C-alpha cells in the first residue's frame, strides 16, 4: 500500500509542477494548492502506513495496547496543512490585488518590478 501511495504522491507532484510552469497566475495558484497535498502525502507515506489504528492511548493504559499509526508524520503534516493553507490564501489575495491594479493575470505581462528594457547602469564614474 505504501507503493500505491508513493505513486499517487508522485502524480500529485507531476500535476502540480505542470501547473506551476504555466503562464496564468490562477493556474499557478492551483499548482500551489496541489503541491501542499503532494508534500503531505510524501511525508505521510515516508512515515510508513498502518491501517485504521489511530495513535491514541486508551484512558486506562499508559501505552497503546496494539501497534498504532506513526504519530510523528501526522504531527508534522498537521502543521504543514495549516501553513500551506495560509500561504495559499495569501497568494490568492496577492494575485487578486495584482490583477486589480495591473489588469493582468499573465505572468508574461506582470513585469512591473523587472521591466523588459531595463536601462544599463551608468558607465561613468
Amino acid at each position: 500500500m505504501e507503493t500505491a501511495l508513493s505513486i499517487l504522491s508522485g502524480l500529485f507532484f507531476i500535476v502540480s509542477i505542470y501547473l506551476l510552469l504555466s503562464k496564468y497566475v490562477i493556474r499557478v495558484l492551483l499548482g500551489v494548492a496541489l503541491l501542499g497535498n503532494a508534500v503531505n502525502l510524501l511525508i505521510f507515506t515516508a512515515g510508513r502506513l498502518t491501517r485504521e489504528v489511530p495513535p491514541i492511548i486508551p484512558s486506562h493504559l499508559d501505552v497503546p495496547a496494539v501497534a498504532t499509526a506513526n504519530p510523528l508524520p501526522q504531527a508534522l503534516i498537521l502543521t504543514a496543512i495549516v501553513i500551506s493553507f495560509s500561504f495559499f490564501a495569501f497568494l490568492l489575495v496577492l494575485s487578486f490585488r495584482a490583477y486589480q491594479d495591473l489588469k493582468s493575470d499573465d505572468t508574461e505581462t506582470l513585469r512591473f518590478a523587472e521591466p523588459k528594457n531595463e536601462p544599463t547602469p551608468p558607465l561613468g564614474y
Partner: protein
Amino acid sequence: MNDTQIYLLLPFAAAVIAPILVRFLGEKAAWILALFPAAIFVHLFGLVEQISNGEVVTGGFVWVPSLNANFTYFLDGLSLTFALLISGIGTLIILYAGGYLGGHKHFGRFLSFIFLFMGAMIGLVAADNLITLFIFWELTSITSFLLIGFDHNREASRRAAIQALVVTGGGGLALLAGVIVLQSISGVSELSLLLGQGDVVRDHPYYLLAFFLIIGAAFTKSAQFPFHFWLPNAMEAPTPVSAFLHSATMVKAGVYLLMRMNPVLGDTVIWETVLPVFGTATLVIGTLLAVRQTDLKLMLAYTTVASLGLLVMLTGFGGEKAIEAAVYYLIAHALFKGALFMIAGIIDHEAGTRDVRKLGGLRKAMPITFAAACLAALSMAGLPPFFGFLAKEEIYAAIAHPTFWGVSITLLTIFGNALMLVIGATVALKPFLGEPVKTPKNAHEGPILLWAGPVVLSIVGLVSALFAGFSNHDFVSPMASAIAGTSVEAHASVIPHFSLALLLSVITIGLGVAVYLKIDQARFAMAWLLAKIGWGPDKGFDQFISGLVRFATWITHRLQNGRMEAYMTTVFIFFGVVLWGSMIYFDELPNVPSFPVLSFYEWGIFTIAAVGLFSVIYANDRLTAIVSLGIQGFAVALIFMLFGAPDLSFTQFMVETLSVVILALVMTRLTLNKTDARKLSEQLFDACVALLAGSALMVLLLSVIQQPFDTALSDFFTSYSKVVAHGGNIVNVIIVDFRGLDTLGEISVVMIAGLSILALIRVKGQKMRKVLKQ
C-alpha cells in the same frame, strides 16, 4: 601594551579628535595636531641608537590565535627608517595642510583621513604578523581612496579614487594570497621569523607562486609599469595628499614590501631578472612621460613613477652595494620629492596656476619658497653636497658592471636620471627664474604653515649629507642590513673622489642640462609620439571597467530575465536532474515494487484523487476547476482517515472547504482562460519538466519506503505521551507539548499571513496606483 605600541597607534587617536579640534580652532588646529606625529617621530628617534646596534624592538598581543593572526610589531632598521620618514614628513604635512586647506569646510574630515592613512602606513611598516601586514596594507588603499576622492564633486577626482582603489586593492588581494602561500610554505606567521626561512622558501615548489603574488602586490602599489597610470591620476587629490602619499609613503609601500621580502624571496634568478627589467622600464617610461607634461604636479608624479622604478631595479639588482644605493636613494627621494610637491602646491596656491608655461620670475615674490626649491632641486639633480649626490654616486657604483646586463641598465639609468634632472630643474627653477609673468593670482610668499614643510625637508636633505657619518651609521647601515639580511656597512661621503661613478654623474648632469635647454622641443616630440600611439593603460582601465559593467549587466539580464516560468523551469529541471543524477550515480534506485494489494474502496479513493488531479489541468471553466480541486482535497482527507489519522483528516476537510470557498470568491473576479496560453510545444516541454521532477520525487519515495524504518522517535513519543505529558492523543501531545515551540512558530506564520492579507485588501486600488506610479 608598551609605549612603542601606543605611539604606533597614536595617529588613530588623532583621527578621532581632529574634526573636533578643527571645529573649535579652525586651521590653527594644525599646530596642535602636528604634535601627534611629532611625538611619534621623537619617540622613534629615541630607538635609533638601540636599533643601529642591531637590536630589534618587538611587542604586541595575540589577536586570533586559531588563524595565526596576531597584532604584533617589530622594528628593525628598515621599519624604523620608514616609520621615521612617515611620522617626520607627516608632521610637516599636517602643518602644510593647515596652510593649504585651512579654510575648507571639510578640513576636519580631511585631517582625519590623513591621520587614518598615517596610522595605517606606520602599522604597515611596523607589522610583524603577516595578516596584520595585509590588514594595514588594505587600510592604506582604502584611506588613500578617501583622500584622492576628497574633492568628490569632480568626476576626475572620483575616477582617480576608484582607479587607485581598484589597482591597489587588487594588489592587496594578491598580497593576501601571497602571505597565505608564504605562511603555508614556511609554517611561520611572523615576518621576523620568516626572514630566517629564506632557504626553505626559495627551494619550495611554490616559490614561484609566492614570488608572483608578492610582486603583483608590490608592483600595483608602487605604480610599476604597466600599473603606473593610477599614480599620476591620483594628483587629483589636494596637494598635501600628493606630497604625503606620493613621495614618502603609500607608493613606497610596494618598495617596502620588496625590500622586506628580499631576504626571503631574493637572490634568485627570477628575482634578479623581473625586478630590474620592470624597474628600468618604469624608470624610462616614467621620465619620458614626465617630459610631456606641463602641469607641475603631473611632472613630479611621473618622476615619482620613475624613481619607484629605479628603487625596484636597485632592490632586485643583487648585491649589497645595490641595496645600499636603494636605501640612499629612498631617503633622498622622500626628502626632495616631499619638498618639491609642497613647493608645487605653494606655487599653485599663491600664483593660481600649476602650468609651467604660465609661470616665471617668482623669485622676488616668493624668496623663501625659491630657496627651498633650489635646495630640493639640487638634491634631486644629485649635486654635492646634498643627500641626492650620495644616492647617485652609490647607484652608479653599484650597477656599473662591465657585463652586457650591467652596461645596458647603466645606460638606461643615466638616461632616466638625466631626464629626472631636467624635470627637477623645470619644476624648481623655471617658475622662479626669468622675467616675471602675469599669473592668475598676484603671487606673494605664503604663510609659515605653507613653507615650513619644504624648508625643513630641503635643509634635512643638506644636513643629512653633510653629517654623512651619522646618517650612514644610524640609518643607512641598519636599513641596508635589514634588507640584505646580513650586516652591511655604508660609508658614502659628500667629498667627491674621482671614480667611474663620478664620471657617470658628470655625464648625467651634462645630458640633463642639454635636454633642459631644449625642453620645449622635447615636450613637443613626446606629445607627438604619444598622440601617434593613442592608447595606454589609462585608457585600457576605462575600457576594462566599462566592459566589466556591460558584462555584469548582460549576465544579470540573462539570469534575472523577469520571466517567472523561466525561473520555475530552471528550478525544477535542476531539482529533477540532481535527484535522478544522484540516485543513479550512487546506485540507490528502488527495486521494482510488487503490485500493491489494496481493498476495493482504497482503489476507489485513489482513483477519485487521480481523477480530481487531472481534471484540474483540463478544467476550462471556473466551476470545474474549483470542484476538481475540492475532489482531490477530500480524497486526500479520506486517505488520511483510512490510514489511522483522524486528526489530519478532520483538518484537511476543514481546510479544503475553506480553500474552495475562498477560491470561489476570488475566482468570480479573476478569469480562467478557456485555453492554455502555451503553444503545444511549450506544453510538451513543461510536461517533460514536470515528469522529470515529479517522477524523481516518486522514485525517491519508493526507494525510501524500501529501506528499513527507524522508529526511535515515534517510539519515544508513544511511550512518554501518557506518562510524561498526560495526554492520550499522541499527535496532539506532540503538537502542543513536545514540539510546542514549533506550533507557536506555525501560529505566528498563520497570523502574519492573515495580517498581510488584511493589509492587501485594505490598501485601496487608488492609493496603490499612486505608489506604483512613483
